[in-house]
């Protein structure tokens, strides 16, 4: 018979292990910043104008490199600022194509690259070097100029291939083609002609995509005879049409009537803010265009699978949630935007790592680089980490021979909706 002491020791050991686990396990949990609280600021560069600046909310790739895009849909100029994950910035990439439209937005990322769509160009930016180049600037077979009429904002980064879906057209084509764009080998596959073939005046109104469901959508309008048709066309990752829905859009005089990109909710609703100030929402069965009057809208955002119309109400940042039927919820104060605005009312220390080794400077009177308040932008915020996104803070402005330039810095910031 074994002594009681030995038995007790054996019983205690597993319990001791569990106790150690209980103590050590919290060390594996990450802290989430308070909504509206800024993390360390990194000076990214200077751009023309004074705040609010023509900048898009920053994005990151999987490796942690960050990217800032200067431009806008009505501004034919494009500048990219790429910040390396371990310090250092590269700028100078200004690729676009055509002068009818400027920056549409960021398309997607891989481990160390981002792609943006500007004018009729799809451009890859390397986070490691800051270099950029046009994807399929010309058709590899015919050398014809290739125009990206629409790019679904989603890069499918699978082990086998890296792709996106686009509507492409050359100047000699009457109608665009849908295609899967292989972003590594830069080839077009699964090319399909536009249907119906007798369509004319195809206008892309907006694009959107959802990484979780592996689907994207193009909202477009075209004429067939004297009839004007507005449709949402849903595509899968292979550029196959999976659904088509009629959306009662008013006649579009120009392309890209949706500000920013269309956003998908977890429930399958797609919504976007039209230039007219109305909200278009639809799913695979159909949709509606609704006016919104209790808020001055800036855009439609997606956060944690939910959709929100964001803007201002009573001179304060506000938002209204969209339910899966596209109906607006009550208008609420957007507290994290308001707190972020309050947190910009004091001088902020900024790390200047544009040239290494990095130095430190101060923004004496910081303010949000875009929008009336932080986070108000036609483009939705992207998730940088749990409860965290990226935003830009404007610093001092300078006169340079009659034109103004403004320094700006990028910072992670705590976000919640509302």
């Amino acid at each position, binding site marked *: 018979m074994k002594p009681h002491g030995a038995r007790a020791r054996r019983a205690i050991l597993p319990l001791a292990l569990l106790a150690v686990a209980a103590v050590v*396990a919290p060390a594996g949990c990450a802290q989430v910043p308070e909504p509206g609280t800024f993390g360390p600021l990194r000076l990214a560069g200077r751009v023309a104008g004074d705040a609010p600046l023509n900048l898009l909310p920053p994005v990151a790739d999987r490796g942690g490199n960050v990217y800032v895009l200067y431009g806008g849909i009505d501004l034919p100029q494009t500048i990219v600022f790429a910040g390396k994950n371990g310090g250092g910035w590269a700028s100078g990439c200004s690729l676009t194509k055509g002068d009818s439209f400027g920056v549409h937005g960021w398309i997607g990322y891989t481990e160390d690259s981002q792609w943006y769509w500007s004018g009729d160009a799809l451009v890859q930016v390397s986070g490691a070097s800051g270099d950029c180049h046009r994807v399929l600037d010309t058709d590899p077979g015919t050398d014809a100029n290739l125009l990206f009429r629409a790019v679904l904002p989603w890069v499918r980064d699978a082990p086998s291939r890296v792709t996106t879906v686009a509507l492409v057209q050359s100047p000699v084509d009457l109608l665009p083609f849908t295609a899967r764009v292989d972003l590594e080998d830069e080839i077009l596959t699964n090319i399909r002609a536009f249907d119906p073939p007798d369509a004319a005046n195809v206008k892309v109104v907006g694009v959107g995509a959802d990484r979780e469901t592996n689907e994207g959508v193009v909202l477009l309008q075209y004429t067939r005879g004297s009839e004007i048709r507005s449709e949402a066309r849903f595509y899968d990752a292979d550029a196959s049409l999976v659904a088509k829905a009629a959306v009662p859009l008013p006649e579009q005089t120009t392309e890209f009537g949706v500000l920013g990109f269309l956003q998908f909710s977890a429930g399958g609703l797609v919504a976007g803010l039209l230039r007219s100030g109305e909200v278009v929402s639809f799913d695979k069965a159909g949709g509606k265009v609704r006016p919104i009057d209790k808020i001055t809208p800036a855009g439609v955002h997606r956060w944690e699978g939910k959709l929100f119309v964001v803007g201002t109400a009573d001179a304060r940042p506000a938002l209204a949630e969209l339910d899966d039927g596209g109906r607006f919820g009550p208008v609420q104060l957007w507290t994290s935007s308001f707190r972020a605005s309050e947190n910009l009312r004091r001088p902020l220390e900024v790390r200047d790592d544009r040239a290494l080794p990095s130095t430190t400077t101060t923004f004496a009177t910081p303010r949000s680089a875009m929008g009336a308040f932080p986070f108000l932008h036609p483009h939705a915020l992207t998730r940088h980490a749990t409860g965290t996104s990226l935003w830009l803070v404007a610093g001092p402005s300078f006169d340079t021979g009659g034109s103004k330039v403004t320094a700006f810095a990028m910072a992670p910031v705590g976000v919640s909706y509302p």
Partner: protein
Amino acid sequence: MSGARAAVVAVASIVGALVTGPALAADPPPKPPDKKDAPKADAGKKDTDRKDGEEKKDDAKEEKEVAFALSGYVNLGVGFTSVPRAVPRDQLTYGLRSSVAGLIVKGTPLAGFSYVVHFGINPEALDVVSDVDVVDKKGDQTDIDATTRTKEVTLVNVEEVSIAYAITSFWSLKGGHFYMPFSPGASVLVTRQMFPKRPQPTQVFMAGADQGISTDLRFVDDRIIVSAGAFNGSSLELKLPDTTALGPVYSGLVDVQPFGAMPETEGDPKRGPFRFALGMGGMFRQGKLFESTGYEATRFREVRLDAAARVAFRGLFLQAEYLRRLQTDDLSFRPAAANGAYVQGSFFFPIPTTRLAIAPLARYGVATEDEQFAARRSIEIEAGLAFFPRADIDDPNRLRIIVQYEGEQRLPEREMAHGGVAHVQMRW
């Protein structure tokens, strides 16, 4: 030690020291010289007619004198992989799978001092870029591209180069290049694995051997094993490329086997009584990250945790592990978090009236990376049958044939890969 043997040891050590790369397996820490499983260069020559006491005395004498023992293994697998959504070239591939030939040199040249040199040669050559040319596609500097030339290189992976000192019969020190004490599944010797490959979730947390020192404490007939060490972290994949991370890694593992020592292999070929083991491992690292100029960029902290459970009973062997990683830094404000878990099992079944045995095998694993940014999940499913043509020998794993299915799913991209592998392991 004879001159020839000394030369071989020296050559093996130099090869091990010169060649670096991702490692395949670890060897358990050397035990004190009075342990019964210390190197036995000529164990087969024992006179079995002698009494046990005399045998042990002779063994101890031999162990003290053994300065060199050579062992090794050849693992060869052939298989195919199907990825239906890949480009046509990659939709069906076939060739060698999980193939490696290993050499292990170990010995106890002086009482209490032992060494291990273990390296593996992978016959599957790796394409490496040997030259890069910048191409001006249009001749007007508007479309610059780069072309690369590649060359096939055969890898020699260093698993372990270490020296150990047994302070007492239960306490030892070890230094060199070897696996950190952290995860049983990530560091098991390649020939002791249940499947030809390690559990995929463990690869996210531990890539190979590291450089450092560790100490082992073994109590109550090896039923409680406590290991702790300090390493330089060269095997840990830091999620900030193009930077240099400096800072020691402190690592530890506690493994409790209350009903007796668990089998050394991931299986129970000896069909022993009921035993189980609970283990917990951890790593902590706090260091500085340096920019490409050599100046400090930021400071980082990293925690990796592991919890493992194993059960063996009459040929049944079950093993499960949960792993978690969290890395934070002061610059990016983006915690790099990952977690993974797997469960695997086998049942060793000797076929009556023959010297054959079979063992059905199964494994399911899940790993989630970048869960704070854009979660990416890999699901691993493996199932197969192991054949042991010589189940009558002391260690049936010396000759083992496995036929298995291996599948992997990647989410949210919804990409599937399926494969089949036939694998032979021979140890000598």
